[in-house]
């Protein structure tokens, strides 16, 4: 069945910026509607802005779509439009099938009621009939795994328990389309894994998923396509891999503009030597800006030695998203560069298999003497290397492995 379950055609949504405008336009629009006249929706009035502008996409049954973008780019607004909470101001949205939402976990929970009672309230709000909840009750309780707390008032729950119960109910909604908005921030790791597994399960059973997330690893794993939004406008619609690369690249670019490459000219760091340039090369010594994870990487560092350094130490750091850092440092290799002549020197670091997760990396090069904190020169985040996912690999990196049959028991 290749019929689309979600069809979005040039959907747009506007909001008012200030409270005054919100109230004023709210009253105006409602009054117009009551009078039987249409509200003016396709123009921007003073104090309004487009939160989502001209978004179009289709989602077929069983497909999953990720929505990514910086904060305030309209992701949640778009999701709410799919959920029928906001009406589009322009365009048209068609949604076929029962919609479930993992958006407001614990919607309708009242602190005074017990977990058991709240399951029924929450379930009813999500659209389940009492009979349906009765049938699924044991499964819900089992998934939530909160033990005796089920019969305690919800006000005594920790935030994690709250999420567990809310999620357990939402996940049993049995929808045809599931809308998920970054709700797994709370809840322990074990539970998060359970949730992603469950989402994977329902995807296999043909449920279409729309997932909003900042976590690129989640998007990569859970979705095949993604929509990248920026300032409400669609930047890219296509494979999740490429969408994420673009998103990260844009993020780095804007970050880059803020970071002035710190090639310290004279900043109190001793100038016995100076780093000139670092270059990334592939196996055949061609200069590259992109490498596939697991391939051979060569890093050439050119520097000028003015004085003789006692014990030069070279280091290269790769910074990925989330502050993850990977490092190659000659100090730890017991590589001695003693006795380097003065003048231009080129050092080559050879990494036979560059196993780093796919990401856009910013790279720093460091030159120190004798100990790591005795900095001579430092190019901070001045180089960029894009690492692509290794072919035929799942997970962050493809582990270098040898497989063999060790034992066979011919019983």
């Amino acid at each position, binding site marked *: 069945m290749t019929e689309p379950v979600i069809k979005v055609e040039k959907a747009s949504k506007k*909001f008012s910026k200030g409270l005054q405008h*919100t*109230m004023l336009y*709210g*009253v105006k*629009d*409602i009054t117009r*509607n*009551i009078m*039987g*006249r*249409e*509200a003016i*929706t*396709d123009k921007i009035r003073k104090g309004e802005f487009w939160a989502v502008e001209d978004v179009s996409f289709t989602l077929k049954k069983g497909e999953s779509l990720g929505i990514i973008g910086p904060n305030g780019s309209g992701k949640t607004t778009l999701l*709410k*439009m799919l*959920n*029928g*909470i*906001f*009406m*589009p*101001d*322009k*365009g*048209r*949205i*068609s*949604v*076929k*099938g*029962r*919609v479930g*939402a993992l*958006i*407001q976990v614990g*919607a*309708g929970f*009242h602190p*005074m*009621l017990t977990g058991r*009672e709240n399951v*029924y*309230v929450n379930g*009813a*709000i*999500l*659209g389940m*009939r*009492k009979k349906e909840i009765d049938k699924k009750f044991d499964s819900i309780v089992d998934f939530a795994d909160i033990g005796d707390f089920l019969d305690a008032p919800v006000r005594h729950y920790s935030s994690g328990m709250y999420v567990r119960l809310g999620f357990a109910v939402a996940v049993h909604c049995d929808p*045809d389309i599931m809308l998920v908005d970054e709700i797994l921030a709370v809840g322990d790791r074990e539970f998060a894994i359970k949730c992603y597994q469950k989402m994977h399960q329902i995807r296999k059973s043909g449920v279409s998923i729309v997932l909003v997330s900042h976590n690129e690893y989640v998007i990569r794993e859970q979705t095949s396509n993604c929509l990248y939004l920026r300032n409400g406008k669609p930047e890219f619609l296509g494979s999740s891999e490429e969408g994420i690369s673009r998103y990260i690249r844009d993020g780095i670019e804007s970050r880059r503009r803020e970071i002035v490459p710190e090639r310290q000219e004279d900043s109190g760091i001793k100038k016995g030597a100076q780093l000139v340039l670092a270059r990334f090369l592939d196996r055949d010594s061609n200069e590259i800006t992109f490498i596939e994870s697991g391939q051979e990487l060569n890093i050439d560092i050119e520097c000028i030695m003015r004085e003789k350094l006692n014990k030069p130490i070279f280091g290269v750091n790769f910074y990925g998203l989330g502050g993850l850092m990977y490092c190659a440092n000659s100090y730890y290799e017991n590589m001695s560069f003693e006795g380097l002549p003065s003048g231009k020197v080129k050092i080559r670091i050879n990494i036979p298999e560059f196993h780093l997760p796919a990401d856009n990396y910013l790279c720093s090069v460091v030159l120190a003497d004798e100990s790591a904190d005795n900095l001579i020169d430092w190019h901070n985040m001045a180089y960029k290397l894009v690492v692509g996912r290794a072919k035929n690999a799942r997970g962050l990196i493809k582990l270098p492995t040898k497989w063999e049959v060790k034992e066979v028991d011919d019983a």
Partner: protein
Amino acid sequence: MEENVYFPNKHLKLGVRIWPRMFRDLIRSRELIWRLFLRNLAAKYKQAVLGYLWAFIMPFIPIGTFMFLNRAGIVNIGSTDMPYALFALIGLSIWQLFSVGIISGTNSIVSAGSVVSRINFPREVLVFASMAESIFEFLTKSVLIVLFFFAFKFRPSWCTVFFPLALIPILILTLGLSLLLSLINGVLRDTANVVSLLVTFLMFLTPVLYPISGAKALIFKLNPISPLITAPRDLIAHGCIKDPAGFVVATVLSFVLFFVAWRIFYIAETKIPERL
């Protein structure tokens, strides 16, 4: 498979076809209304030890005050068809169906909080379920009324069986006004306060604690809510309604208001999450 299509000004474009849809949505949500109804009740009374008892004690305050004022000659209440305490209690019970109902109704959307702006469900359900509080308080007071029957050795007329039916118009009125006010409150937040004040004021313009007689009679006669209070009370006292025309007019007005309000609510409710 159910298909939902969203486009600008959808509810307007549907025109008259909206009515069957509204009824269908309401009937479909009956379980949810009941659930929220129970939830609101449990929430209010679970932790208050005196909670249930308050419903018994509270009526005595205005009743006692007026009895005292009447005895002391400060206020001339006039003659009532039944012992004053009973008269006032019944009047107050019916009135509070309206007053408590309208205040919780006005607040219902806003106090539901983020659920409204994150989950898609028919929001009139919140208004309907908000009647829980006032209906429960009424039931509590009816127990008190029955006790009063015994205490004052008052024999109600057999028409009292129609008493619950006669309460329907005021309930419908309360629902209708709540639907409208909850909308307005969503955008203009001080509506709830204004309603609170107006309702308190309105009580004195309605024959709740005193009968229609004397100088105030004209105001009472002009007040469209008056028949909704006096008619059920008359049923208990006399077995017949003293002012049937007034009651019929008030009932019709209440129903009309309710349907208009419901329609408006349906049209406007999509705008509320934006402004909340």
